[in-house]
């Protein structure tokens, strides 16, 4: 099989798997489970939030454990192992998805969440870890854009109902064939799969784009921590803002849950276009530029929602604000799917992904849910809530701008390189 075809198949596998996984996360996990808890099981929202917090913490812990194990156990970094682990996670998740609509007791929900956390926690480092085998470094921005575009277009346009029964059926249509395909690839002796498993030794695949920047830093751990903190801020701001918007029916009815196709199609198309733009900017300008745009757009769109809440509190507004919101979401999702691999080597990708996705993604979601619930209990108005979110976005925008002009220390020369001679 020609090398280009093998690479193309690998890209197809990675894109399809990650897009399906992300679609599952933003629809079934974040929306469907809430519906299951409130509507079918009859729990109140604070209780459901508690169960989601358990899910977040357990998933985070599992992912960190798997990531740590991948860092210290070379066998767990082998391509075939990652593929088989991904199959196990997806197969387990398929079974859990099929079972979810039949849950009726809180105890059953808790058991589901524990099992689901194990599957999700396993899936995150092993699937992201396949990037070093399947995605060339030069294409990571564009592949991330494709994943983002597919996942969000499907979520915006194809997923009309957030009821667990409907979402479960739609997800099973995607997950079951995906699990079968993964199983075949993971266990069948296919020659191109062996070819994939050798890719990460090639500099074209294995060593991430920003690895040199981190290794040459005077404090590499701080660099990674800084990236995690930035992504945490992005997820926190997005989640905290959207949680409140999702609780405002007239805003949702005019946009993400509109019965009319036009607003949802507009949001879906914007997601696709801005994902493509995000991929181009990530590849040609770098991740830093995307962070500027993300914080700036979040600050602007939340400010617009504040104005709307202030001037016309009962109006659903136009599709402009959701479209702008979708822009920021697409841009940061491109970073999510490209950056962790680009700061990693085949040895560190499991750990970095676990730390990055688990800490910045899941922990941010958990904390923002807790904050949103507390504010709701304190009867904080929509306008006040979004003003706080807006302030957070502005603070991080200012921080990014300050970092842009902050003098950075010169990179350390590689070990063994001759020191510069001082001029007399």
């Amino acid at each position, binding site marked *: 099989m020609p090398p280009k075809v093998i690479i193309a198949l690998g890209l197809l596998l990675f894109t399809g798997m990650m897009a399906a996984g992300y679609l599952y996360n933003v629809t079934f996990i974040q929306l469907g489970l809430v519906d299951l808890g409130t509507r079918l099981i009859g729990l109140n929202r604070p209780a459901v939030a508690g169960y989601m917090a358990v899910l977040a913490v357990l998933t985070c812990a599992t992912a960190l454990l798997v990531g740590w194990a991948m860092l210290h156990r070379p066998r767990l970094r082998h391509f075939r192992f990652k593929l088989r682990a991904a199959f196990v996670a997806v197969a387990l998740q398929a079974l859990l998805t099929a079972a979810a609509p039949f849950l009726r007791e809180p105890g059953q929900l808790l058991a589901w969440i524990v099992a689901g956390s194990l599957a999700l926690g396993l899936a995150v480092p092993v699937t992201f870890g396949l990037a070093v085998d399947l995605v060339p*470094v*030069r294409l990571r921005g564009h592949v991330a854009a494709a994943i983002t575009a597919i996942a969000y277009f499907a979520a915006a346009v194809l997923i009309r109902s957030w009821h667990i029964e409907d979402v479960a059926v739609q997800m099973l249509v995607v997950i079951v064939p995906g699990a079968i395909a993964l199983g075949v690839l993971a266990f069948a002796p296919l020659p191109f799969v062996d070819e994939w498993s050798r890719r990460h030794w090639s500099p074209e695949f294995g*060593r991430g*784009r*920003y*690895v*040199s*920047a981190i290794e*040459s830093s005077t404090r590499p751990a701080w*660099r990674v921590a800084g*990236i995690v903190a930035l992504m945490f801020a992005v997820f926190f701001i997005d989640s905290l803002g959207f949680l409140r918007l999702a609780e405002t029916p007239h805003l949702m009815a005019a946009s993400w849950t509109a019965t009319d196709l036009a607003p949802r199609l507009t949001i879906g198309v914007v997601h696709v*276009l*801005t994902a*493509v*733009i995000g991929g*181009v*900017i990530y*590849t*040609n*300008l*770098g*991740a*830093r530029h995307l962070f500027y*745009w993300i914080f*700036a*757009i979040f600050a*602007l*769109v939340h*400010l*617009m929602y504040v*104005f*709307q809440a202030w*001037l*016309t509190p009962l*109006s*659903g*507004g*136009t599709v*402009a604000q959701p*479209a*702008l919101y979708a*822009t920021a979401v697409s841009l940061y999702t491109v970073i999510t799917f490209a950056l962790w691999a680009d700061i990693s080597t085949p040895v560190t990708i499991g750990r970095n992904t676990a730390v990055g996705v688990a800490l910045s993604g899941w922990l941010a979601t958990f904390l923002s849910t807790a904050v949103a619930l507390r504010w709701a209990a304190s009867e904080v108005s929509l306008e006040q809530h979004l003003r706080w979110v807006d302030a957070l976005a502005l603070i991080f925008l200012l921080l990014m701008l300050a970092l842009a002009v902050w003098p*950075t220390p010169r*990179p350390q020369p590689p070990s063994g390189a001759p020191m510069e001679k001082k001029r007399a």
Partner: protein
Amino acid sequence: MRRRLVAIGMIALFLLAGCAGEEDLALTLLMRGEHVTGDLPGDVYIAGGEVAVPAGVVIGRSVYLFDGSLALDGEIGGDVFVFGGRLALGPAALVNGDLRLAGGTVERAPGATIGGTVLEGSRALPLDELMPERSTTDSFARWLMATLPLSVAAYVLGRRSPQALSAVSEAALSHPIVSLSVGALAAMVLPALMVAMVFTLVLIPLALLLVMILALVIGYGAIALGWRLGGRLRRYTPLSEAGATGLGTLLVMLALFLAGLIPLAGGWLGLLVSVLLLGAVFLTRFGARPFVPAPATADRL
């Protein structure tokens, strides 16, 4: 001092080009609700609040309802466009023009009179106002009034800042996808920023200034393309670099004008070129430095 005068003159030329052919720039923006007691200057744009036009009050021009509510018991001389919000037509309401419903809700009491036609959906969009049908001669005259000052500005810039023009044109022509991407993001975000500024009221002048700056930026990009074309023309003509830039800009604008005559696609082409030029200018910091794509291995994030 001389450079500053040149810059001010350039800006004046751009503004002159930008205002070419526009007749009436007055408008009224209502955002927090108002009980209208008399005619308002220009078209009326309602962006929020509860506006009431009682019986006996006449608004001479058109009304655009984007958000909030309009309780109409008086008379509207032009059209009423409803993009969002709620329009309540009282029994004495009179709309002399069309009632165009592109969104929002309308309640019409018995006795409310619409002099023109009630249009809904895409037919309600004010395309004839945004892109009015003009004769080719009229369009050409407007184009000429905009292009001549631009060509003069091109002559000056071609003489003083050829490196900057080179950087912008290189970014636009050699990296069109990147330029389009950056330009598209800017084109999505900046209008939203302007709307947010308008909402504050005190920043309305700044919003208008931002519009002018955007026009400046796109014009600058067009001059950069003109510089590139002028460079080719110099092979066949005895023009100086500045003269060739002026002529090249004229030809670029002519090409855009002719492309704009193509039905449907012409407008989109103009928008695409504007976005491309916007992105190229931003990428190169107004030509201060050439755009170089980030390397495969970066030494900073």
